[in-house]
């Protein structure tokens, strides 16, 4: 019995310690992040209490090495720690960041960047034009190593430091979206990256204590606890942020993240789940933001060319433009937004989201096909598809029976698929929803072309180039980005043209024309654009920058301040 008593005592002690410890370690962000007497932090005795912003998110950077980074979380950190030659402003336009001025030669083959004065690395050293040139040249010469940069430097020949504050980049051909491209080329501290002998060595470098030139420095990165502590860079060339520290904490499930916001464990998050947004809006002292973003969800229609290898496996009726039109007219996109996104989005039309570049690239002349089941029935009737006894239309041997697949890792697509299948059944099309493992679905769409309809989504880049490239026939190869298999030589040519037109308005015309072609041929039916859902504790912080860049962007955190 002695042992039993001992155990009971231990259990009790654990309970007491747990509850006691819990209250003692409640971080009241914005007031006093320092622990109580048990863990005194000496620096706090001399300076004022630091202002700490606690951010909750659902991921964690796989690496902080820009050569081999694939997760958005890594890029969030790059934006804080590193600087680029250009960046986007809140209005969606490109402006210089490291570069004070930038210009392009007549022939479009030479870009000249004049750097700002007095830019310093986090370690106090000066950032030089030679170092910038070293970066660009490393990306160009070692593409097997700098994997993630390789897509942004195609067409680059070399970089050169003309003088102490000027860098020149030579190109093979004119590049229209140069500003956007260089905005992803994070300028790293060369001594950290010079010594790697092989591409593999370079990629294995996780760079978890990066030296950069950005507005925040990483002081602690714990990959096991998944906590990142950033400190304000007082010497930042763009001025000093009004907060002292930013702490990122990873949550593995969104319910816990929302709960943490509710009880004040975190001060902000830009990953509020659709399903919880309405609840978060009712939280005390929490402000919510629902803003149009760059994500889109589409219905992919198998458009692979008949001579594709392997031969497409699909319902042949999908090759008929009238069938596509009928499908489009049978989808109530507003309903999808209301039900699936709980109103936090917009019905989709084009592959270019409306907010890209402040709306500049989105073809607003295109009028979407209206939701009209009668019209859908009429189109199919006229095209010769007759309803059978079971309510399913057929033309000769071809019955309108389709597979409607979606990646199994999505929580929203099952609902989307059900709703679409219901509408389609009203026009005599039988669509059978089916969840498929995402990797299998990649292979089914490209290169196998073995599907009918697939629901999937994209997160668009700030520049139209990438989304447009997805529809080129060049991308319909194994490892390429095309999943529809759309192939149109006119479109392909326009794609190449828009890459090399320097004049923005000229380029816009081509981009708009490409959207017309896609709308006409319908390899995709764009279902909706989802909103970015963000929330913050309004009792603790204020003055977030509410722009398409998001409240967690470095521009926003530069101006956030505690509530007085």
């Amino acid at each position, binding site marked *: 019995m002695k042992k039993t008593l001992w155990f009971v005592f231990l259990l009790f002690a654990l309970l007491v310690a747990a509850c006691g410890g819990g209250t003692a370690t409640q971080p009241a962000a914005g007031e006093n992040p320092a622990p109580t007497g048990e*863990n005194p932090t000496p620096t706090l005795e001399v300076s004022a209490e630091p202002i700490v912003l606690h951010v909750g998110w659902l991921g964690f950077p796989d690496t902080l090495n820009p050569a081999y980074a694939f997760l958005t979380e890594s890029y969030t950190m790059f934006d804080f720690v590193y600087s680029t030659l250009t960046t986007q402003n809140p209005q969606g336009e490109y402006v210089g960041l490291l570069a004070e001025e930038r210009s392009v030669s007549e022939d479009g083959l030479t870009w000249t960047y004049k750097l700002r004065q007095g830019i310093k690395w986090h370690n106090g050293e000066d950032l030089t034009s030679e170092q910038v040139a070293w970066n660009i040249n490393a990306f160009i010469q070692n593409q097997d190593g700098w994997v993630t940069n390789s897509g942004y430097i195609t067409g680059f020949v070399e970089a050169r430091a003309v003088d102490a504050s000027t860098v020149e980049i030579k190109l093979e051909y004119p590049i229209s979206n140069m500003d956007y491209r260089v905005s992803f080329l994070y300028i790293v501290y060369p001594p950290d990256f010079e010594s790697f002998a092989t591409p593999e060595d370079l*990629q294995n470098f996780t760079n978890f204590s990066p030296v950069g030139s950005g507005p925040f420095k990483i002081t602690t990165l714990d990959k096991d606890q998944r906590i990142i502590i950033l400190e304000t860079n007082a010497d930042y060339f763009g001025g000093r942020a009004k907060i002292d520290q930013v702490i990122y904490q990873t949550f593995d499930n969104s*319910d816990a993240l929302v709960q943490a916001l509710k009880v004040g464990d975190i001060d902000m998050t830009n990953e509020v789940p659709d399903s919880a947004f309405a609840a978060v809006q009712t939280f005390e002292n929490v402000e919510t933001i629902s803003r149009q973003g760059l994500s889109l969800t589409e219905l992919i229609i198998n458009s692979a060319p008949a001579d594709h290898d392997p031969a497409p496996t699909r319902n042949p009726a999908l090759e008929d433009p009238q069938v596509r039109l009928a499908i489009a007219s049978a989808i109530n996109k507003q309903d999808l937004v209301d039900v699936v996104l709980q109103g936090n989005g917009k019905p989709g039309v084009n592959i270019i989201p409306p907010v890209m570049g402040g709306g500049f690239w989105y073809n607003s002349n295109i009028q979407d096909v209206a939701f009209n089941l009668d019209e859908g029935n009429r189109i199919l009737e006229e095209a010769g598809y007759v309803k059978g006894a079971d309510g399913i239309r057929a033309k000769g041997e071809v019955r309108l029976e389709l597979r409607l697949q979606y990646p199994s890792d999505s929580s929203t697509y099952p609902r989307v698929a059900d709703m679409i299948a219901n509408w389609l059944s009203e026009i005599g099309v039988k669509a059978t929803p089916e969840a498929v493992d995402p990797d299998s679905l990649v292979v089914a769409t490209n290169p196998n072309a073995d599907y009918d309809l697939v629901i999937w989504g994209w997160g668009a880049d700030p520049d139209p180039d990438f989304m447009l490239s997805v529809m080129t026939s060049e991308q319909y190869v194994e490892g390429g*980005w095309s999943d529809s298999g759309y192939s149109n030589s006119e479109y392909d040519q326009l794609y190449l043209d828009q890459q090399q037109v320097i004049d923005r308005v000229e380029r816009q015309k081509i981009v708009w024309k490409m959207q017309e072609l896609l709308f006409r041929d319908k390899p995709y039916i764009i279902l909706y654009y989802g909103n970015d859902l963000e929330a913050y504790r309004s009792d603790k912080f204020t003055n977030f920058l509410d722009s398409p860049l998001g409240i967690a962007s470095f521009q926003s955190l530069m101006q956030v301040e505690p509530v007085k």
Partner: protein
Amino acid sequence: MSRRDLLIRKLLLSLVTMFVVVAINFVLFRILPGDPVRAVIGRNVKISAEVQQSLREQFGLDKPVFPDQFFSTLGQWARGNLGVSWSLRKPVAEILVAKLWNTLLLIGLGQILSIFLGVVLGLFAGWKRKTALDVGALTFSLIAWATPTFWLGIILLAAGSSWLGLPTRGIVSPENVGKPLYTVIPDLMAHLFLPTLTLSILYLGEYMLIMRSSILEVLSEDYILTAKAKGMSHWQVLWKHALKNAMLPIVTIVALNLGFTVSGAIYIETVFSYDGLGKLFQTALTKQDYPLLQGAFLLLAVSVILANMLADILYTYLDPRVKAS
């Protein structure tokens, strides 16, 4: 057979099992659909086909699965090298060890609590059969056993953070990151409390039910009657004669659970953003990170086999008949 011979035989058998598991896992991951390179780089990154191919070569994926990939993996393992994770770019062994400690801490505490409470509760319930205590314990155990892990975790998280001010994630608070765990014990306790409680409640039911039925069976044996006839007190009967025999099924089930909770803690780890092995397995699978997957499943296999061996050895102490056979 002596205990030593038995041990050696078990060990050899375990090695054979391990090899079979390794071989099956090797094949299993490779027949999964999809391309690891694509899984690692994700869907939205613009990487040319040539660069993807060079990654494929770097990972050794350009070579045939059998014999090249199989034997190079085996050779690597024979040298004690589990390889480098493709997605995390760190030695697999290093990753596994870091996460293993966290998981062991959680599982260890949770299992100790649930074994202790389950055994005590089951013992009393069986002993005081058909009393209010028995019915109460039985009802609680059945409900606890049937409760979905994820749901219980979320409910406890919401209640604990709102009413007790307990933390919502992780193992320690941000300001304690990087400090040795023993220096921040109160904070650690606060973080461990809810996940441990969840785990304990879930396993408690199972242990209690098994202990109860086991003790009931033992109590009906003749030697218990003999013991009572000798004039021993209730406690002596229960402690000296009943408990040891009734523990046998518990040892089996604990051993089995220990092996599987290493992976089974995944739900709890996910709810409480607790960085352990469960979460790692999930990442490895979604990224099709073969070296990490193989390493993780090797660890899993080893832990199940070890736990079984442990049970076998414990049996030789608890039940002399095992040794004799």
